[in-house]
């Protein structure tokens, strides 16, 4: 059970009610998180800014969603896993690519860069760092801007996973 109630527009602090024009158009999971974060105006503002930034990256959306799902799965964030798996399907990830993350190093579902991106998400999430060999391997494929965007993506996944976990935000079973 979630640890703070969702606020509808008329319950939210007045200074952020205008943000509900955006909040109400969001898909299920980010809408739920937004309505709970609305108890704190800067928290909601930060979350919406981050969500918008994530949608305007130059990093291939398939790599973005692979990295996001890989981190969310390691953190056992069911809500982020489900939402970003559906985003992943929408941007072209195959069912095999979403199902084989644990065996990414041997699964034929991935190409070399996809494997590296999953490994990057895995290492940063579990060990909290990216070693020089992995950084160099990823940097051989991605320009600096996208390298930064990959780091941002994995950090944002961990941020969202932990935020949802702390507040016990889960999708309603339909």
């Amino acid at each position, binding site marked *: 059970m979630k640890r703070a109630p969702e606020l509808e527009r008329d319950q939210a602090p007045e200074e952020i009610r205008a943000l509900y024009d955006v909040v109400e158009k969001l898909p299920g999971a980010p809408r739920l998180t937004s309505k709970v974060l609305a108890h704190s105006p800067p928290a909601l503002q930060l979350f919406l800014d981050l969500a918008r930034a994530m949608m305007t990256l130059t990093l291939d959306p398939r790599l973005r969603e692979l990295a996001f799902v890989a981190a969310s799965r*390691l953190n*056992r964030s*069911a809500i982020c896993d489900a939402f970003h798996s559906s985003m992943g399907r929408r941007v072209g990830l195959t069912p095999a690519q979403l199902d084989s993350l*644990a*065996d990414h*190093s*041997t699964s034929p579902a991935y190409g070399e860069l996809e494997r590296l991106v999953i*490994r990057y998400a*895995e*290492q940063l999430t*579990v*060990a909290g*760092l990216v*070693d*020089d*060999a*992995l950084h160099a391997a990823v940097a051989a494929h991605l320009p600096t801007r996208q390298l930064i965007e990959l780091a941002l993506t994995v950090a944002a996944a961990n941020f969202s996973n932990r935020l949802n976990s702390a507040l016990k935000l889960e999708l309603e079973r339909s």
Partner: protein
Amino acid sequence: MALGLNDVDVDGMKEMDRKIRENPALGKRTVKLRSTWKRGVKALIEIGAQEVLGKAATPPTRRFFVAMDAPAGLGGVDAGPTAAESLVAALAGCLTSGIAANAALFDVPIAGIAIDIEADIDFRGLLGHDKSVRNGFSDIRYTVTIQSPAPEEKVRRCKETIDRKSPVGDTIANPVNITSTFVFKPS
């Protein structure tokens, strides 16, 4: 779930104790882990289901991850503790949890527990320099500090019970059957 003394789930422990007393076969449990190589000498270990009578005894969503690596000189980049350190860590965790569990069962309030461990290993064994030197740890010493408003003898009993009963301590100190299988996949 209402937690008991020191936030320990005493009712849950008593419930499992009762079930296993009624049906001793339920006491036999198999834990399952999977380690995969993450290049270098890094390993990522996934800890998953526990099985009782061949069936999952834990929710299918139960998954934990532990990363291991090694420092320079042992082939790694220090992205995590070594496996050998993790073994000592497992003993430290077992003693800490075990003292807390005992304290709750013995009705002993606890303010703090700290365990300092030292473990000695001689790399000449692993490196093959001297066949008379064992590969693993030869000595493990630990000091348990417990802060509690309860009388010293009651607190000491929590520690001394786990000195005798720690499952990890038992596994390290006494022989255990290890078997292995090899699977080759050409790639």
